[in-house]
């Protein structure tokens, strides 16, 4: 995300966005006084385009686009360090999670490969009821166009007998698929959108 060094506070402020984040996360974001503890505690700060503290500030200023398109929200591992140490008892990790959900809904996911991995994961769950680790990786590699990811691990894992070649399947797979369908239908109807959201450029889960 490109940074801008000037900001028109009134024109760029999206008050609905602030309200939506607060409602969905259950957090009062005006409590944040920008002490920086979340940034100081986050082990992923090095990789973020905006450190967590600035994400919080951007929400306070209603900067919807910048926030939902940031890579930070997708690089957060939800490790809870920020939440644990926030002096104002804000569940920061929950806010980040909320932003991820919103960015999916708004189709502004900045890191398609991470979304692709998540999608592949969910597809595996939907299909088998469980995650098929051995099957997941190659498909992801193909989709993310990083064919050699973790290929170095394969020989050793094979030797240790850790790779399974048949997915373990849940008997009531129908039930699992049904859960997925209901959720998708409800999301679709709740938002009243013309189309169900696509999952990156891949076939829908």
């Amino acid at each position, binding site marked *: 995300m490109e940074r801008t060094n000037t900001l028109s506070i009134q024109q760029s402020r999206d008050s609905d966005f602030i309200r939506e984040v607060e409602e969905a996360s259950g957090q009062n974001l005006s*409590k944040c*006084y*920008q*002490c*920086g*503890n*979340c*940034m*100081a*505690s*986050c082990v992923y*700060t*090095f990789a973020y385009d*905006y*450190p967590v*503290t*600035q994400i919080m500030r951007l929400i306070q200023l209603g900067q919807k686009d910048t926030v939902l398109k940031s890579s930070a929200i997708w690089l957060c591992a939800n490790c809870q*360090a920020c939440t*644990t*140490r*926030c*002096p*104002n*008892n804000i569940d920061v990790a929950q806010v980040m999670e909320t932003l991820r959900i919103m960015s999916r809904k708004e189709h502004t996911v900045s890191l398609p490969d991470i979304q692709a991995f998540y999608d592949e994961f969910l597809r595996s769950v939907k299909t088998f009821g469980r995650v098929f680790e051995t099957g997941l990786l190659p498909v992801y590699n193909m989709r993310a166009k990083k064919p050699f990811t973790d290929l170095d691990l394969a020989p050793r894992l094979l030797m240790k007998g850790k790779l399974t070649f048949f997915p373990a399947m849940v008997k009531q797979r129908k039930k699992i698929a049904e859960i997925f369908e209901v959720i998708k239908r409800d999301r679709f109807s709740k938002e009243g959108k013309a189309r169900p959201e696509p999952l990156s450029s891949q076939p829908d889960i």
Partner: protein
Amino acid sequence: MRIGVFVCNCGTNIAGTVDTAKVASEALAFADVVYATNYMYTCSEPGQQEIQRAIGEYGLQGVVVAACSPRMHEPTFRRAVEKAGLNKYMFEMANIREHVSWIGNDREANTRKAVDLVRMAVGKLRFNQPLFSSKMPVNKRLLVIGGGVAGIQAALDCADGGVDVVMVERKQYIGGKMAQLDKTFPTIDCSSCILGPKMVDVSQKENITLYAASEIESISGYIGNFTVEIRKKTTYVNWDACTGCGACMEKCPAKKAEDYFNEGLGTARAINIPFPQAIPKKAVIDAQFCRQLNGKKCGVCAKICPVKAIDFEMKDTIVTEKVGAIIAATGYDLFDHSVYGEYGAGRLPDVITGIQYERILSASGPYGGHIRRPSDGKEPTEIVFISCVGSRDQSVGRPYCSGVCCMYIAKQAILTRDHLPESNSYVFYMDIRAPGKNYDEFVRRAQEEYGVQYIRGRVGKIYQRGDRMVVQGADTLLGVQVEVEADLVVLATGVESSSGAGELAEKLRISYDQYGFYMESHPKLRPVETNTAGVYLAGACQGPKDIPSSVAQGSAAASKVQSLFAHDMIETNPQVALVNERNCIACGKCIQVCPFGAIQWKELRGGIKKAEVLPSVCQGCGVCNATCPPKAVQLQHATDNQILAEVNELCA
């Protein structure tokens, strides 16, 4: 009864959301109300004159003012009606500001509520009776609880004015936290040089009686006439004999006692005088560490003492003092940072508190004024200060600003540079709060002249890595995570109420807030009074304060005491219980329940017993009234009829 009603606009404070004219016009329709009006500022001089004029012109026998809280202006208006010739208890207030206009914006509902409240006040007033105070002598002696700088200032001011002062200090020495400090901001003058002479004054003034190592056991009585029981704690040393020569300390073989004065940085002997300038300079045995008291053979101190002051059989004693006023100056404690797991929870030896650092800086401290770190005694070169540890932190239940940390950090950083010119100091801060005289200039000097690196952000974690600690924080101005390798980390632990503050407040019958700080009578206009007459506040027991403010409040409390003691007699509160002997069935229940022993038996002719209230002892709580089966005891000005009249008006 001819009643007048005065509805105050309070500028727009009330009139903004209450139709005061309508309240007045509706009030005029109430039975007995012969005059009603609204006025811009009823408490102003012309406002009070308007009341007085109406009393004369309309022959009013009772007055209702609908305005702010009676806790604010009831005394003002009582004086006003008294000047116009009414008994001051023929007056009632309806609180239509704090309880109406300030808590809702619905003008119609507010006006309706205001009318109700005025009707209730009028209803009660109809049952009011003139009450008359009697006079009581004032015992012109003062009790000061706490011997820190605030208490010392108050005691000395009063003693200078000729008042007999009793000072009670829980520790074995006076001087409080200030005695532990090295230098003071923003002048960097030596703490013990400015406090020391005052401490000596306390010990030398003939009209100050000092009880150190003592605590308040109980307090009874009321303004002008308190009785205080003081528990003199066991010191195992007869202080009348002890000369403070220190011979016992030198020879005591128990060398691993806790050194409280040095905040645990060193060790003390089991028999100890904490510092050379201590007042009183008397030894105390720490029973926890004394060999003799723990069943081992010792008694070295008893043998060495030239005046035979050691007494292993000593027990606590209780002394009773009678005083007319009390100043609470119990000070503060520092936040226990062990709740911060991310800062090592107190387990990292080189993460210390600000007050520990004061002891390190102090020439009379455990390291003789040389800056070293506790773990290995090495001289640190990289020193990190972290502000707001236990301040402005909701997650540890301390959302308030401690007010002094920003300044003491700046001072310590400056002193560090003075001691160790080659060292580097870093201050992690959120905001710099330096609103005192010459304060901000001082903080600027730390940065501009002493090269202290201020980093705007909190610290997320401190951990040991090899010989040093890693301080992992944020620089929010840059928007980056920062790491500082530190030899020593000083946590600016915040101010919290003194341990035991709550229990003492209960003995004093004063209120305290959720953090244990004592409540002043009014945050702006009565900052040193409490809601218990005759009890005053000084220093940080009321809220975090620096030295100048504590001293100022000590003097302020002293002046309050002196203006009280300028009177030989004070008026008693006539709002006390009264027994109607015809109705009393002599069941004795009121005598049982009275918390103050204010009710006793009285024998009439023919041996008939009746309950009798001692008006000088009764505090007016009304427990007896609620208890009395035939309702023969009635609390004046809050009788059953008066309270029910209000309810009745509400239901009408």
